[in-house]
C-alpha cells in the first residue's frame, strides 16, 4: 500500500514587486559615486586656487554659472539626499514597532527629502549670479561684462 504524502507547503503566491532589492542596489551604486563627487567638490573648493579663502558669493555664483558644476552639484544633491533618506528609513524601520508610526515617519521623511531635492534643484538651475541690486565687489568678475552690455 502506498502512502499518500501531503504536499508540505502550499504553492507560493507571486508577491507584488518589492523595492528592497533596488534600494540595496541604489545604496551600493550611489555610495562610490558620492565618494568621487564629494571629494572632488571638496578638493576644488578648498585646495585649488586660493583654497579656503576663495569661498564667497562670487565663487559659488561663478561655479553655478557653468552647466558642468550645476549638474555636478545637482547629482550630489539627488544622490546624497536619496542615499541619506534610504539610510534614515532603515533606522526608522529598525526602531519603530508600531506600523502606523512607521508609515507616518517614513512618509514624513520622504516628503522632507522630496522638498529638499526640489528646492535644491530649483536653486541650482535658477540661480542668478549677478543680482541687479547687489554690491558689484561681491559678484563674480563676469557680471561687469554682462552689466555693461
Amino acid at each position, binding site marked *: 500500500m502506498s502512502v499518500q504524502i501531503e504536499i508540505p507547503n502550499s504553492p507560493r503566491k507571486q508577491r507584488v514587486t518589492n523595492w528592497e*532589492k533596488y534600494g540595496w542596489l541604489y545604496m551600493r551604486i550611489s555610495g562610490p559615486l558620492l565618494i568621487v563627487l564629494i571629494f572632488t567638490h571638496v578638493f576644488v573648493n578648498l585646495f585649488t586656487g586660493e583654497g579656503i579663502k576663495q569661498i564667497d558669493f562670487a565663487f559659488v555664483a561663478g561655479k553655478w554659472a557653468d552647466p558642468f558644476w550645476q549638474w555636478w552639484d545637482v547629482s550630489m544633491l539627488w544622490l546624497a539626499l536619496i542615499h541619506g533618506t534610504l539610510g534614515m528609513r532603515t533606522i526608522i524601520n*529598525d526602531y519603530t514597532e508600531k506600523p502606523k508610526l512607521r508609515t507616518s515617519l517614513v512618509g514624513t521623511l520622504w516628503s522632507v527629502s522630496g522638498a529638499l531635492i526640489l528646492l535644491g534643484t530649483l536653486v541650482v538651475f535658477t540661480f542668478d549670479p549677478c543680482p541687479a541690486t547687489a554690491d558689484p565687489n561681491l559678484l563674480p568678475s563676469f557680471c561687469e561684462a554682462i552689466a555693461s552690455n
Partner: protein
Amino acid sequence: MSEVKEIAEIPSFTVTLSIRRFDPEKSEEASWEEFQVEMHSTDRVLDALHKIKWEQDGSLTFRRSCAHGVCGSDAVRINGRNRLACKTLIKDLDINSTITVEPIKGLPVEKDLVVDMNPFYQAYKDINPFLLANDKPEKERLQSPEDRARYDDTTKCILCAACTTSCPVFWTDGQYFGPAAIVNAHRFIFDSRDEQADLRLDILNDKEGVWRCRTTFNCTEACPRGIEVTKAIAEVKQAILRGKP
C-alpha cells in the same frame, strides 16, 4: 607516590558566574544572580551550569543535550557573546572577573536561559529546508566533488540560533528571516541536485529577507561551527541579483 599524585592533580580555581534568572511564576522582571563554583581548567561553562544546578540551585533552567557542540541546544550569551556553553572553556574567559551568562537575545525568554525557539524555527521552515526535485528518486542523485564543495560551509549549521540572535537587525522586531534561515537556504540554493533555487531566492528577496542584512559580521563571529555566515548571505544576495545560483 606522593610525587605522582601531585603531578596528576588538576589545578582548580573559584569562578563567579552571574546568571540572568527569570521565572515568570515568581516575578515579571528578570534579575542577575551570582554563584561561586570551584572549577578545573578542563571545565566548560556548561560544567559550571551543571555544578550550580546539581549542587546549589536545582531550579536553574537551561537546555543541553549532547553537551559536545553538535546538537546546538545550549547556545547562551557568555560575557556578552553568543557561544555554546559546552564549547566554551572557563579558562579561556577572564576568570578573575565575574562571568556573565544570559539567554540569547531577540527570542522570548521562557525561564532562566531557556528561550522560545519557535520564531527561529518558523523562519527556517519558511525557506523549505529540504531537497526539492521534480523527478522521482529511483536512483541516487550524483554530484561532483566541486558541486558539493560549493555549499559545504553551510551544511555545518546545527541550528543553535547563536547567529540569528546575535544579529542587531533580528533584535529590532524579530521579523527578519535571520542568518540561520539564510544559511540553510544557501545550503539548498547552491546544491546542484535541488531544482527550486528560484523559489528560495524569491522567498529571500522579501521585505524581511536578505536585504535587511547590514553586514555587521556578528553572525560570523558568533557561529560555533565557524560558518562564514555573512559571506553566505552575500552569496545569496548576488544570486538574487543574477536571478540564478
